[in-house]
């Protein structure tokens, strides 16, 4: 496989984890966030600072990125407790702006000059920047994030998230403290995004503030909604298609974003549940072709 294809696959993998992590907050817990790129950035910068300023090896700053971003995400989730729906969207937007402004204006984070010379990870003595080993690393993380998402969806935490998403007040009435679970959602979602940030930083080798702006948050949310928010398969497919699309659309290079935007509008008009959402045309088709054959008497009559 050529280095080009591998690098695209690596970026796609990183964005898949971003979409999956946002899905936990937005798809499961129903907290629509337009600031996810902030957590991506916090993870990337944490790794960058630890690597460049403190000479820490990859594994240290990768784990640290996850933990620290999770903690910061939990804290940043606090203002969100008092707001819902559209206000929450704007608050998360605001968090994104403030975080990027801090990266840009505070010298410790490199300011406008960013942080460069982030070393490649080394594992048992072999360094690998890019190439198949890094691909495996990234997609290993994808599997991990997917597993976490799957586990949450089946667990008590996931049920609580679901309850909050559907009706916060009703959930509170049966003893599910919305505040507590919202914080969990922010924390977990942020932590996983932080890991993605670390992988990104070590792959590219440099971090600059403008990579993590609000526009990127929009892109990530679009992937989740496009693929099918709240499902496990949706964000993965959404991220793969929308992240790889610019590469495939290079033949219509000049109009890539016009097509991208139009795609989003059309999808929302005709398949608002997402490409692989529960009631989507494609998902129904796949279920018919590959799903379990259960023919109930009523179904036969209906035919």
């Amino acid at each position: 496989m050529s280095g080009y294809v591998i690098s695209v696959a690596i970026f796609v993998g990183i964005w898949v984890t971003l979409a999956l992590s946002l899905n936990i907050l937005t798809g499961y817990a129903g907290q629509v966030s337009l600031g996810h790129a902030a957590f991506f950035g916090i993870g990337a910068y944490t790794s960058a600072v630890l690597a460049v300023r403190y000479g820490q090896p990859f594994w240290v700053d990768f784990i640290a990125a996850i933990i620290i971003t999770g903690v910061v995400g939990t804290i940043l989730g606090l203002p969100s407790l008092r707001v819902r729906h559209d206000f929450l969207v704007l608050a998360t937007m605001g968090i994104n702006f403030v975080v990027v402004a801090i990266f840009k204006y505070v010298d410790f984070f490199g300011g406008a000059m960013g942080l460069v010379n982030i070393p490649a990870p080394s594992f048992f003595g072999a360094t690998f920047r890019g190439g198949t080993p890094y691909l495996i690393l990234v997609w290993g993380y994808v599997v991990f994030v997917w597993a976490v998402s799957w586990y949450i969806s089946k667990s008590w935490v996931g049920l609580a998230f679901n309850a909050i998403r559907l009706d916060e007040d009703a959930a509170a009435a049966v003893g599910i403290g919305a505040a507590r679970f919202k914080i969990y959602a922010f924390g977990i979602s942020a932590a996983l995004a932080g890991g993605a940030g670390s992988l990104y930083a070590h792959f590219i080798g440099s971090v600059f503030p403008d990579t993590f702006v609000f526009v990127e948050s929009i892109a990530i949310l679009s992937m989740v909604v496009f693929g099918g928010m709240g499902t496990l398969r949706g964000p993965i497919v959404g991220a793969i298609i929308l992240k790889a699309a610019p590469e495939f659309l290079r033949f219509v290079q000049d109009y890539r974003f016009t097509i991208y935007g139009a795609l989003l509008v059309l999808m929302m008009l005709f398949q608002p549940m997402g490409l692989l959402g529960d009631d989507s045309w494609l998902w129904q088709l796949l279920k018919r072709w590959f799903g379990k054959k259960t023919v109930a008497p009523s179904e036969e009559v209906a035919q």
Partner: protein
Amino acid sequence: MKRKTLLLLVGLLVIGLLATGCGGSNTGPIKIGLFSPTTGFAAADGTSALQSAQLAVKMINADGGVLGRQLELVTYDDGAKPDQASSIARKLIEQDKVLAGISGSYSGATRAAAPIFQEAGIPMISAYAIHPEITATGDKIFRVGTLADVEGRVGAELVGNVLGTKKVAILTIDNDFGVSLTDGFKAHAADLGLDIVLEEKYPLGETEFRPIIGKIIAANPDAVYMTGYYNEAANFVSQAKDEGLTAQIIGQEGYDSPKFIELAGPASEGVIITTDLNRDSDRPMTKKFLEQYKAEYGEDADMVGASAFDAVQLLAYAIKTAGSTDPDKIAEAIANLKNFEDVASGPFLRYTPGREVVRPVGAQIVKDGAFHFFHEFDDEALITAQ
């Protein structure tokens, strides 16, 4: 009959094998890659870079190409995003098999692509991205644009020694371009004993300068060193005029675009900028570039374009000098370059060991609605990157 056919076939086969050469065609076009942002917020600069590079290739090919072969420019849009530049770099190297690459993009994207070119041993030239770490990536990475640090120092020289002013206010854009420029300015200003009465940063894309102009007026400087791109500069300059700021405004190559004059209108009159594109130049390549760009695209060229144009010219020269398509020889040719005249913003005197270009830095003044020659700085100590 059969033997003759066999002989013919063998002959054709031998010729065919010879024609393909060892490891690649040597009669087809020579490919060089360019990535620049033609979509998104940086589309203006990306378009200038792309159009200028394409013009350079056209001109070179009309003159017979390089080493008897035509030059082909493979271009991609990176939207000024590091991850796109990173993938594009690999694509150019592996799929398009370019001989060398040019970055017509911003620092973040260029810095992401540089290590990939370096590792593959393919030379890459940064047209106008000024982050110092770009050339530090390795011995295959060169820069055409004047290092911001150098330009900043020239700015201080301009203010202190050429204009003879002492009190300066600094207003800088908050990205790496502005910060580098200001650092250079302040370093040399300290040497000259200039009095910096105010120093402020502002965000990229800012359109409302009136409050900060008020602060500047209160500090009463003789000159204002304001860094930014043509749109921020145009807003600043016209608002400064409205609010009554009379100090001399000094800009840099970020202003160097006909758009600055168009958007600022009469307020641009008298602004002096440090830049390398001399509209009044007698140098043949400069005149050629300015005329042909206007003829081809119907608008005046800008500094970003000139940088991309020169990057192509530099590569063509290096390939010709090396006499081969060997990337090591090409990089060597650039490193050993002396007094290269065939550029719009030259001459290129030489390259430092750090792969930064050493060339005279100019200053232009806006007079009668156009850029004109104001001064040229060629003191070696001043213009050499440290």
